[in-house]
């Protein structure tokens, strides 16, 4: 009896967040410079579902289907992916100060994108290159850790290796910027690194779905085991978990999510750090609820920020800048509100 009462708040938060996310989805569809009324939106969906002729103008249809829905879906997926990856890494490394790019995924992806831009590759290759180099960076970090720690599994060395790789790729990005043509390539690279969703197409979302699904499904299935992993390798092992294999699965999955997100929208900071904190305050540290709740909260947060980014001023504000400007003071607020332990 007692147990059910205790678990209800977490379930309520998850259901509530789900409802908010759905509402926000439709509200976001109407926001933007091109006015779409509630009636227009209803008519468009109604026509699509029934497969009949749509009474609304072509222009509105194309704004909804080709521009806003892909962008909104991308915001939800990326926000969710980053904060789920953040929650996973924080549990795995027993440290609430860790963000999803801890193993160098963001820096690697940034370098991949910058290089593709410099070589004037088409947009799809920029994404692919970002994704590939994100994975490469994390693999490098794991490899360094394996060599340095000589078979012993040392969490701290893995984190340090991640920092080394991240620093290395950051320097390479700076190098690329230095040699880039300041008239054309340099601004392009800089804008990409700031992060944004303004160029996202339906195709991008479909392409992102592949690594996203491969990454998120294991994290959702194995989320309960993260509770034991948060007590450290030895204890989890004594409880009967194959920690080596599990840790590999968590790291690969969370990295896929991070790389997929960075590949589509550039570097967006803070979400993976702040949202898991916020969520932990709402649903507690039990990963059974924390992981799905983090996903929903991350989706809500990035969608909200993206709505702000495209409506606040006549010129779009880069998303990465906004998440940090909103995220930093918000994090201070969370720290002030926290109780004993990392609630």
């Amino acid at each position, binding site marked *: 009896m*007692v147990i059910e009462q205790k678990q209800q708040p977490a379930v309520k938060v998850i259901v509530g967040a789900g409802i908010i996310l759905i509402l926000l989805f439709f509200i976001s569809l109407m926001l933007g410079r091109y006015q779409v009324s509630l009636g227009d939106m209803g008519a468009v969906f109604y026509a699509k579902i029934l497969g009949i002729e749509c009474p609304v103008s072509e222009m509105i249809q194309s704004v909804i289907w080709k521009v806003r829905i892909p962008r909104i879906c991308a915001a939800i997926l990326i926000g969710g992916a980053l904060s789920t990856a953040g929650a996973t890494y924080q549990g795995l490394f*027993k440290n*609430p100060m860790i963000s999803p790019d801890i193993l160098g995924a963001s820096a690697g992806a940034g370098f991949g994108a910058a290089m593709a831009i410099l070589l004037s590759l088409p947009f799809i290759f920029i994404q692919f290159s970002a994704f590939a180099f994100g994975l490469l960076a994390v693999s490098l970090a794991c490899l360094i850790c394996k060599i340095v720690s000589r078979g012993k599994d040392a969490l701290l060395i893995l984190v340090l290796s991640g920092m080394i790789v991240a620093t290395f790729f950051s320097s390479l990005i700076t190098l690329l910027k230095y040699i880039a043509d300041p008239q054309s390539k340099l601004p392009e690279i800089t804008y990409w690194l700031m992060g944004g969703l303004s160029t996202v197409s339906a195709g991008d979302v479909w392409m992102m779905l592949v690594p996203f699904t491969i990454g998120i499904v294991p994290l959702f299935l194995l989320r309960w085991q993260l*509770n034991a992993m948060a007590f450290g390798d030895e204890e989890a092992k*004594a*409880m*009967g*978990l194959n920690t080596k294999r599990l840790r590999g699965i968590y790291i690969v999955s969370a990295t896929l999510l991070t790389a997929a997100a960075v590949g589509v929208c550039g570097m967006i900071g803070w979400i993976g750090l702040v949202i898991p904190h916020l969520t932990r305050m709402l649903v507690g*540290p039990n990963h059974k609820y924390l992981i799905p709740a983090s996903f929903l909260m991350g989706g809500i947060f990035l969608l909200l920020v993206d709505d702000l980014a495209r409506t606040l001023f006549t010129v779009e504000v880069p998303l990465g800048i906004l998440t940090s400007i909103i995220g930093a003071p918000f994090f201070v607020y969370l720290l002030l509100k926290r109780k004993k332990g*990392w609630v």
Partner: protein
Amino acid sequence: MKFEANDIRAGYENLDIVQDVSFSVTSGEVLCLLGPNGVGKTTLFKSLLGFLPLHGGVVLIDGQPCDYNDCKKQATLIGYVPQLHEPPFPFEVLDVVVMGGIGQMNLFSGPNKEEYQRAEDILAMLGVAFLANKVYTEVSGGERQMVLIARALMQEPKFLMMDEPTSNLDFGNQMRVLQQVRMLADKGMGIIMTSHFPDHAFMCCTKAAVMCRDTSFKVGSVEEIITEETLQQAYGIRVKIANVDMEEEETGTITTCLPMLNTIRISREVRQFNETA
């Protein structure tokens, strides 16, 4: 059931820290492992639990060598109670306890109602049922130790390995933990624990083992091992073993270790001097 460690050699990398360790514990027995700081008690523990690869020797349970790669099976044989620690996240006590059954659960589903019920029963058995819905990081050290014991019991192991279950606990909580150790042994659990207090061996153990700096390892019944010579050799201080008559109490005679320190005399003289002054 019988837990046997034969000719164990253990350490880090290529360095042997522990050598020629052999002992056995059967169900219902409690072995207390004593030894000075840094002698390798923790290394031995980690090796017996499979956290560190054994450099030599073999661990047998009922004659069967332990397969440390099969964590799931291992968890049903040996439960591990770690030294008191504080995890970074404020889990609920019941969630921590129920975690112990994780190896036995279906990989993809969390614990079900029966498992939560079993976790509550174990807490009740340890006399800390009231902790169930408290936050693990906010309860006292003694209570946290009970939660860790409960978590290990959730695995339904045949043997328990407790790494300094009394460290960082106040006097009362130390005794309460030892009482639970005795209670579990009476229920048929085989227990291996480490301690810094030889007295603890007299209080709740059947066997004792002492590790010394010269890598010698002695094991036997408590009376055999905890002697004045062995303790002096292990800890480098003079110790007398005294029998205190407690006939009016249920306990009868209590055997205890008394350190022979001249500070005892000095501080008494200072106290007497202060009183007369």
